[in-house]
């Protein structure tokens, strides 16, 4: 399209959301008005030069965080707003506690692909292009034995920028860090398995079809507490 007709600024902004410039770290730009997007990009360019001058990347990170917060700050919850919620106190001190880990980062073990949407060997790019199908499906939970070597962990998730998790699973699925904390006595043990799924899924189906089983399975694993990580 860029070859044959002039692209509008609005088209440019929208292209970051699963379009020709799809970038899941910057997809929030598509939520902006043209003025907001212009201000954000001009501000980001200035910040980049300041960051080089000051040898300090924190200001770049701060600007990106502010943009990302704007896109998740609105009322996207579609009825899933609650006045109050349950609370279960810890019954044991951490030194005696067995913990479990569950993330929505889309990790799984090599050779145990959950094959979402019935597809074998789906790539990250294919997951991104099929995101609208993912959000109509019930999620599948991948069981990840806690002794899985890091080089056998795979990640695929069409809803977020997985580059950080590809470089180092611990950026989103901190199994190795948990084991280190356990080894120095921060808590007693991990359950035999950790768990992960793709958080971009049908919320009502998650609630009605999937969660009762996951909850029963977790009760059977009998952790004293679970570390949960939305990604």
């Amino acid at each position, binding site marked *: 399209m860029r070859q044959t007709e002039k692209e509008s600024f609005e088209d440019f902004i929208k292209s970051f959301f699963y379009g020709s410039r799809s970038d*899941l*770290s910057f997809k929030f730009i598509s939520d902006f008005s043209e003025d907001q997007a212009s201000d954000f990009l001009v501000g980001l360019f200035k910040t980049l030069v300041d960051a080089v001058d000051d040898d300090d990347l924190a200001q770049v*990170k701060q600007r*990106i*965080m502010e943009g*990302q*917060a704007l*896109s*998740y*700050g609105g009322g996207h*919850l579609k009825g*899933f*707003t*609650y*006045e109050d*919620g*349950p*609370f*279960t*106190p810890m*019954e044991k*001190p*951490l030194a005696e506690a067995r913990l479990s880990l*569950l993330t*929505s980062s889309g990790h799984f073990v090599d050779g145990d692909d959950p094959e979402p949407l019935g597809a074998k060997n789906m790539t990250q790019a294919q997951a991104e292009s099929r995101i609208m199908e993912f959000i109509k499906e019930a*999620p599948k939970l991948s069981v990840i034995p806690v002794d899985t070597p890091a080089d056998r962990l795979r990640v695929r998730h069409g809803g977020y*920028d*997985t*580059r*950080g*998790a590809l470089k*180092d699973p*611990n*950026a*989103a699925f*901190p199994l190795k*860090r*948990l084991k280190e*904390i356990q080894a120095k006595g*921060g808590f007693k043990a991990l359950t035999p398995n950790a768990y992960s*799924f793709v*958080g971009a*899924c049908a*919320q009502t189906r*998650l*609630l009605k079809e999937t*969660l009762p089983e*996951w*909850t029963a399975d*977790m*009760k059977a694993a009998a*952790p*004293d*507490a*679970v*570390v*949960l*990580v*939305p*990604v």
Partner: protein
Amino acid sequence: MSVGHVARSFEQEGIPTVVIAVKAFENRMRSMALPRVLLTHELLGRPFGRPFDSERQTEVLEAALDLLEDATANGDIWEI
């Protein structure tokens, strides 16, 4: 949002939870009235910080474990 549902379901069945989420998710986490939430000042997709920053990743996890032990009621939200 998906993990918010998981947290509520586990807690209802007597399993304590702590949720670790990037600050961008703050409104979602608050709307879902979750028991314990640690918000991290990190980018989307990297709730424990930069790849290979093991010091930061450990710091975030240890704060979450402190929150797990210290919280006494629903709605305890810390930031790191």
